[in-house]
């Protein structure tokens, strides 16, 4: 009785959480990662073994797409229909009931499955890569973004409006701190985290101020400046 009640509470909590945070209708395919993290990772891992439910690594190879779609939409429906694989899973995972994600469209579920098939959860975002692996193209992009020659994808103000960077060409602004030694001071990981948010309140007011690629390029550019290697042209020394 208690177990049933607890499962009911857990299910209700999950459904409530999805109602508050999910708003799955109209999600773009690129949001597969976000939906997966919001709805699946509480019970499933990807390549890290069993949690509450099975490890999802390779699931798109183990099961057919129509079966996965039906199971994600209504696991109990598939079990009650007498599907042997679903019944076996239900028994193996101690009767844990998976929430019915009926609010996700076929396309949205398809996008998540595509992302899993491409080992999406194991892929690093571009900005999480170490700055030392940046190419000359990344640095060239960063130089243009920093000076404002190329506009930031989300419409933000160019870094040089407020900041200076040693050897970056255009005399930078002096409202914000000089970023020439920022990389040495904060190091790769802290800078990655820092660049995820705008450094001051300003327009456009949005959480994603820089795209991961822009963030990575700028981090690499700051690294070069910290090491005293930013040439006027933004090209790597010796190239």
């Amino acid at each position, binding site marked *: 009785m208690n177990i049933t009640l607890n499962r009911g509470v857990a299910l209700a909590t999950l459904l409530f959480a999805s109602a508050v945070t999910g708003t799955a209708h109209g999600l773009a395919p690129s949001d597969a990662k976000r939906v997966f993290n919001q709805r699946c990772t509480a019970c499933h891992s990807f390549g890290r073994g069993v949690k509450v439910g099975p490890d999802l690594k390779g699931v798109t190879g183990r099961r057919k797409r129509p079966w996965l779609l039906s199971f994600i939409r209504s696991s109990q429906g598939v079990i009650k229909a007498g599907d042997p694989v679903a019944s076996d899973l239900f028994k193996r995972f101690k009767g844990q009931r998976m929430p019915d994600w009926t609010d996700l469209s076929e396309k949205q579920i398809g996008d998540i499955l595509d992302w899993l098939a491409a080992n999406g959860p194991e892929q690093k975002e571009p900005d999480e890569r170490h700055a030392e692996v940046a190419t000359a193209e990344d640095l060239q992009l960063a130089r243009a973004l920093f*000076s*404002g*020659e190329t506009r930031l994808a989300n419409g*933000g*103000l*160019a870094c*040089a*409006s*407020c900041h200076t960077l040693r050897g970056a060409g*255009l*005399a*930078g*602004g*002096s*409202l914000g701190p000089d970023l020439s030694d920022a990389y040495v001071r904060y190091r790769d990981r802290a800078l990655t985290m820092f660049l995820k948010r705008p450094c*001051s*309140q*300003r*327009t456009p007011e949005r959480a994603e101020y820089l795209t991961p690629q822009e963030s990575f390029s700028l981090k690499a550019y700051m690294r070069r400046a910290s090491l005293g290697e930013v040439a006027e042209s933004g090209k790597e020394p010796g190239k």
Partner: protein
Amino acid sequence: MKTRFLFELLPYGATGLLVVGLAIRFAISGRGAADLNDQIERARQVFRGGRIWRFAVLVLLVAHLLALLVPAQVVVWSQVPLRLYLLEGIGLLVGTLVLVGCSGAIGRHLEQSQGSRAAAVAEAAFLAATLVAVLSGLLTALFYRWGSRWSAAILTPYLASLLRGRPNAGYITQMPFLVQLHVVATCLALAILPFTGLATLLVAAADRALGWVARPSGVAGRWAQGWLRRHNPAAWIWPEED
């Protein structure tokens, strides 16, 4: 509390005082024409200044207005380094001219002995607030480079939030002291303006502008009156009375 007062309430209070004060000054300006002429003359002595100063003030006001109305275009235009340096250089030059002119106005105000004591105090306060506003603006441009760019993303949204009636002081509280001083001093100057001789000049200018606007309608009215007299409709409405 201090933040709310300075950056959320003061701008509205100052604008309210400016609008109501100027409206009252305009409404009572018709009384005592001789006295008004004296006031205008006294105000001219203090505020008129040289042609260059008046031009610099105009450029400064227009530049601030453009930054408020078309911030994105200003940023895009100044993307080219040469344009940015030109814009900021002209801004510094114009700001310096306004500062010099403002100092001159303070000197002329101190030399002037006529007028009421209250008006003299208001004028001194206005000139002091204006001087602080101009000086802090100039120092901001010097010490916090590329104000023409960062102000578009930080100060313009603050002003826009005031205009929308949902003030967001968060934009301004993160700024250096000089920028905050610039905003507060400007608000104070606007609040005091209706009590100064400059208001007399503005009211006189508005009166003259209204006269120009009214002139064509007066001409049209006189022409319509003459036309009606010549083509009196009574003649065909009541022909027997002809």
